[in-house]
């Protein structure tokens, strides 16, 4: 589904952000992307989305990410931004949800059906005609996920989906992520959430893959995590 082949990237010369990354994610997998601040998580996502260009090859569904394939690639990828205010730029939730399907040439009727179906699936029907600047942080995050789902992407990328949410809303988001069937790549510092939502974890450190394996193994490995400026998830840390 997604394949990175020897991908490197640097914003400035001699300070590489990502170095020689290679991995693949298969269809239906749910992968957590973890690492300390500045490890390169966001850069990796931006490369995949074609917002940045680096060296090496990135394949989505067998298609190499390049200027020519961008429309095709982006249509398959749904990206939930960390700041929902950046994601939701239209006045109402509904208008934000129809933005992408109509841009991709889906008919008005089908768009309407998709919007209603997604809202129903996420239990957000009441939000449909609400104004984006008047809904709460938790609602906004859920609405942002709904906007992306209305695109019917094959892969969903999320950047810190649980940041700044209270426990209740965080739980709702986690349950929503678990209920999705698409391929998922989730970048976060919320390791408990990663443990709940992902089967596999890729640990980035200083632009390289420090570990790649089952979530339950990597997230239990205190020595590995601490070596890369991370800590055990709270639920596994136990009480001192």
């Amino acid at each position, binding site marked *: 589904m997604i394949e990175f082949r020897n991908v490197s990237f640097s914003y400035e010369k001699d300070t590489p952000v990502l170095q020689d990354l290679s991995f693949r994610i298969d269809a239906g997998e749910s992968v957590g992307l973890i690492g300390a601040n500045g490890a390169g998580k966001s850069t990796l996502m*931006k490369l995949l*989305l074609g*917002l940045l260009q680096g060296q090496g090859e990135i394949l989505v569904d067998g298609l190499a990410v390049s200027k020519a394939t961008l*429309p095709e690639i*982006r*249509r398959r*990828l*749904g*990206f939930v*931004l960390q*700041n929902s*205010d*950046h*994601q939701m*730029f*239209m*006045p*109402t939730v*509904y*208008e934000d949800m*129809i*933005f*992408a399907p*109509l*841009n*991709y040439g889906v008919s*008005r009727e089908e768009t309407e059906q998709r919007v209603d179906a997604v809202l129903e699936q996420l239990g957000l029907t009441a939000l449909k005609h609400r*104004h*984006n*600047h*008047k809904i709460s942080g938790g609602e906004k995050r859920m609405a942002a996920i709904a*906007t992306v789902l209305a*695109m019917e992407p094959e892969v969903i990328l999320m950047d810190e989906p649980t940041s700044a949410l209270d426990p209740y809303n965080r739980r709702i988001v986690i349950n929503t992520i678990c209920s999705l069937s698409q391929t998922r790549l989730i970048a976060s510092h919320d390791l408990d959430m990663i443990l709940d939502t992902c089967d596999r974890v890729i640990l980035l450190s200083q632009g390289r893959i420090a570990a790649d394996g089952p979530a339950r193994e990597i997230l239990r490995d205190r020595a590995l995590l601490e070596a890369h400026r991370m800590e055990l998830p709270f639920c596994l840390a136990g009480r001192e």
Partner: protein
Amino acid sequence: MNKSEQALSALAEMDELAARQSPIHRLHPIAKLLVTIAYIFTVVSFGKYQLSGLAVMALYPVLLFQLSGIPARTCFHKLRIVLPLVMAVGLFNPFFDRSPLLYLGTVPVSGGVISMLSLMVKGVLCLTASFLLIAATPIDSLCAALRRLHVPSLLVTLLLLTYRYVGVMTEEVSIMTDAYRLRAPGQKGIHISAWGSFLGQLLLRSMDRAQELYASMLLRGYHGHFHYAAVNPFRPADGAYLVCCIAVFALLRFVNVAELLGRLLVR
């Protein structure tokens, strides 16, 4: 509450009013927009001594307030912003235009007083009309109406996006103002040493924000077009409202109803 917070609550208040339901809210946005413009045009076109003609025009906002259930109190609260300038300009009229126009009993009333009063009445009526328009029409329907009236899409989209981010940025300014005040007790505003960095910081962050916003548009297939929510069709009732209002305004402009009514009683 600091100034930005006041602005935020004013915005929220307008949104809340526009989301209500009433016969006026249900009217087509194009009809409402055109009627409002016609009304303001009519009011402003009254001569400076035609106070009683203007008085009849006041029935329109009164009727609309009643039909829409929008509280007039909110509106009058807003008048404080722009009325001072109108007042300042009008206040000189009584000094310059002193020829008596009519006598109330034996007290002469000069043309300047009449023109000052009519200027103030005009100010209140015009503002009330635009207030009623926006209080009964959500911004997205208004933008859709502007598109239908062939206002360039670039401008309409810009209005829509800016409106969306006015809330976000104002909130940020509000937080920064509070943070500044907490560390600068007794200062009325931003000290000169921070003049540049206060807004400058915010500006740099907004540029990054714009980048991210553009990315989020691109990732959802943006290629130069914005799609708006479909607007309800223009019903015959909307057309009737539009035609009737404009006809009545024209009538009131040329026939002084107050004068006629008065003549029934006074000879």
